[in-house]
């Protein structure tokens, strides 16, 4: 899958914004949004929030996990744990990217957050690499991947699935041959 498509999926997540206009409910196909009252926070899908922000019609309230202290703790937890820890949002990477791109002024300590999220990402990707290595060497045929986010899976997908397909092919050829010689 294209990373842009993972981002597309992340854009469905809800986020709070403070609009600077007043507007009745909007009846979208995917559900109602609003009503919008100037100065009062309201939950909207991320794609809409970004569109409003670009038109300077709102201020985005960053999700509560997008906070230096919370992320610092998360990073520590991720470092300490041997396994993957649960992320505050299944799309943490995409949401951070999108918000830092178009709403930097709404996020306090944007630079620190960028670094922290990148650190967490790097930690997790390194962990993912080493667990893939163990998995491939173990001859196992299936693995549990709890708490991995879609973006992380997608990073590993092209290489990992192809490699496993090939290994399966080789293995089945091999066992097929043993069986036929024994017969």
């Amino acid at each position, binding site marked *: 899958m294209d990373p842009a498509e993972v981002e597309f999926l992340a854009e469905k997540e809800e986020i709070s914004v403070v609009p600077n206009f007043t507007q009745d409910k909007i009846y979208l*196909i*995917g559900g109602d949004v609003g009503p919008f009252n100037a100065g009062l926070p309201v939950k909207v899908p991320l794609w809409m929030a970004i569109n409003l922000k670009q038109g300077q019609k709102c201020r985005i309230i960053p999700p509560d996990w997008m906070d230096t202290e919370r992320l610092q703790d998360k990073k520590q937890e991720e470092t300490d744990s041997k396994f993957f820890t649960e992320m505050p949002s299944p799309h943490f990477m995409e949401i951070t990217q999108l918000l830092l791109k178009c709403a930097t002024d709404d996020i306090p300590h944007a630079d620190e957050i960028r670094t922290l999220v990148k650190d967490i990402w790097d930690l997790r990707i390194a962990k993912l690499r080493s667990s893939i290595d163990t998995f491939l060497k173990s001859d196992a045929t299936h*693995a*549990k991947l709890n708490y991995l986010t879609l973006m992380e899976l997608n990073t590993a997908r092209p290489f990992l699935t192809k490699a496993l397909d090939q290994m399966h092919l080789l293995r089945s050829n091999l066992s097929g041959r043993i069986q036929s010689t024994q017969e």
Partner: protein
Amino acid sequence: MREPIFPVYNWITVRTGNTQKCKQNKWRELVKNIIMSEIIEYGEENEEEIELTAAEVLQQLEQAWLNEKFSPDLLECKVELVECMIDQITEMEENIKRAKKGDFKISIHRMEIDRIRYVLSSYLRCRLQKIEKYTTYILEQDKQRKEEEPCKLSQEEFTFAKEYAETLEEHLRNVALRHMPPNLQTLDPKQTAVKPNLEKYVFMKVIEDTDGVLVEEETLDTGEEIVDLQKGDQHIMRYKPIASLVSSGAVTLI
């Protein structure tokens, strides 16, 4: 309170029990046309009315899109979802035309329509790609399908598959086969058909608890391997053992 611009889109109108039912009937008519009366019994069983809000339909369509994207095999076509969503989009576009120019809502509605249209076309295109690649295999499977099983292809896809297969064969004949020595001029679709690799590894997420999924059959050097799938878990494994779970909706591909 002021009347909203798009009053059609409140919950009650979209909760289209009747429309949904008539769509199912329409769909059945279509299927019947292709495979004659074989399907009638299946249709009868499927009489139950499904009530969904537009948002739920959209949700299911997105799920179907992702499953189709990641599954190596062609899945059952969600004709009802696709038609329902196309109707929604068309109706919404009518509404936009009626709304007064420069309204701020219009751009939001447009954006949403664009997003839905992307999912729709990506879904249909993904299916067409599979049909083009595995034409013979898919048609063969369809022939062997039992009466009570639903058809995997929509009417349009079926026509496309048939015509594509015919055109391709004719092309191969004209370009190469007729120049071959007479003993090599036959084309055996069974030998040339491209088959999807059902042993492909996929990522999946469990929606409903399912116990005792046989991942690996017993072979000479390894014992059989069985896993219990718990709701919310994510796994990577071969497609074949979970193929039926994907169609039933107990797991979804990610």
